[in-house]
């Protein structure tokens, strides 16, 4: 069949204007004042502190959501229990609604003006304007990715291999470690990379709960926002945005590799 080249031109032009132009401009602006200027912007104490906080938050949120995601995937794939649809749905809520709304919801539940706030305060836990709140918000908005990347792999692989292991005398832990995990590892890793990308880049939910206290509750995305919105320091914005963009690109490349691994793995016995 003849290929419509006209359509190709339209598509490339659209993607060029909507996607390539902004990304190209970001790279151009980040380095327009030279590499040393770029380095000086990203090594500002505020920027470094923000980056470190972002990484710390990710170090908590990513493992949590990975364990919960894999656990939930195993439960959903292998057992039909009362209410599993409701649980399944709950996983998607945080990414289906605005992160700003998630932020407001967390404040209304856990801050001093919220339901549990006074009680939490007596326990010495403060959620609004604190790192705890940032961790909570970040964990919420990156909730479903591991589950969503693992569940289809589990469903597709079926239970045959696990049952075979059981007939050979393997207990649940051994079966999970030696049989299930190798089957789902690329799927899990895919979800982990997505979770990481989302946690490092989260803005809307975090900016609501963090109170934006510079040097204390500023993650890198908030630092970037603040550099422009409060301080009109375009260069600081751009240079640090490039750091986040670079992380995103690396994540994309890793995801691409994982997808092809996953495809090969699946194609094995097709």
């Amino acid at each position: 069949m003849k290929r419509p080249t006209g359509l190709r031109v339209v598509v490339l032009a659209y993607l060029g204007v909507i996607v390539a132009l902004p990304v190209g401009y970001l790279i151009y602006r980040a380095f327009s004042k030279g590499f040393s200027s770029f380095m000086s912007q990203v090594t500002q104490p505020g920027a470094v502190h923000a980056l470190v906080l972002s990484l710390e938050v990710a170090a908590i949120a990513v493992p949590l959501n990975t364990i919960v995601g894999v656990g939930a995937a195993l439960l959903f794939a292998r057992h039909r229990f009362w209410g599993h649809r409701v649980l399944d749905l709950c996983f998607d809520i945080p990414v289906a609604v605005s992160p700003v709304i998630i932020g407001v919801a967390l404040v209304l539940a856990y801050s001093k003006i919220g339901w549990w706030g006074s009680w939490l305060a007596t326990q010495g836990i403060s959620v609004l304007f604190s790192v705890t709140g940032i961790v909570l918000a970040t964990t919420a908005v990156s909730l479903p990715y591991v589950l969503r990347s693992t569940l289809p792999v589990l469903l597709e692989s079926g239970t045959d291999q696990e049952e075979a292991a059981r007939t050979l005398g393997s207990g649940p832990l051994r079966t999970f470690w030696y049989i299930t995990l190798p089957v789902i590892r690329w799927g899990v890793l895919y979800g982990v990379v997505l979770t990481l990308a989302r946690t490092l880049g989260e803005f809307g939910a975090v900016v609501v709960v963090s109170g934006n206290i510079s040097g204390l509750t500023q993650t890198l995305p908030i630092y970037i926002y603040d550099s422009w919105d409060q301080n009109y320091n375009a260069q600081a914005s751009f240079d640090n945005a490039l750091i986040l963009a670079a992380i995103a690109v690396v994540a994309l490349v890793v995801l691409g590799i994982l997808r092809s691994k996953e495809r090969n793995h699946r194609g094995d016995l097709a």
Partner: protein
Amino acid sequence: MAILLNRVTKSYGSRRVVDDVTTSIDDGSLTVILGPSGSGKSTLLRLIAGLETLDSGTVAIDGQDVTFQDVRDRNIGFCFQHYAPFRHMTVAKNVGFGLKVRKQSRADIDRRVGELLEIVRLSDKANRYPSQLSGGERQRMALARALAIEPRVLLLDEPFGALDAQVRVELRSWLRDFHHRIPVTTIMVTHDQQEAMEVADQLIIMAEGAIQQTGDPRHIYASPSNEFVQGFLGPITNFGGVPVRPHDLEIRGANAPGEHAVVTAIQNFGFEVRVDLRTEHDTSCWVQLSTREAETLSLSVGDAVTVSVRHEPALMI
């Protein structure tokens, strides 16, 4: 008796998949459970293995009640319909998995795996991955893996179901021969009656969750206990209001004794010929002839003949 099932029942929701099954399986036998799809035969096999929990009844293996025993304590070898190879392990690792679980020494595992691969003729493929094997080879690997743990019982779920016709035939006779050498009690599930007849020394026929008939395959073929069994084991045709095997009918010249009939169609399959007839009572039936018989009769459509039941027939009700 190696395996005793007593009033075994299993339902999924309101559907009874296995309905009050009671039977026994001889030590060292090769028993085939035969039935159409949905007859509950695979579920029965999984109940024996412990992969499903039964609703009521008991399962005993070697005189020991295993009804509430976990699969992994039952020491059974199970071959899955699609072989369930561990895709990320080599053939040798697959076969050795059960031994590793049993904490055998490396040397023992290697030796035993070597022996088994020899038996299933996969020694040269020990370090391949399942994806690099053919269907028949995967099947044999799965068999070796199940046998590695020296199971009390070997359970095969549609073992040849996913294979090419030619490989199936090869593997069937290989399995017979193999069972002869290693006479572990084996139960195999299939929906293919030819396969069942060829392999089984005990046959269990199932339909709608219940056992229809058990016994020696030739005996069952010759005297099926009901019409379902008769129809399922081979083609039947209706002659004088009675179901008969079409090869038990005989066609002779128009003057011979028997019922008068007219040939309405002839289909030649090469190895056999099917002749459709309309009898004097205006009923239709068909007869299966060998090619040689057909040649001798040299029939053509419209010929007047007589049809009768062969002498010493295996007439069945």
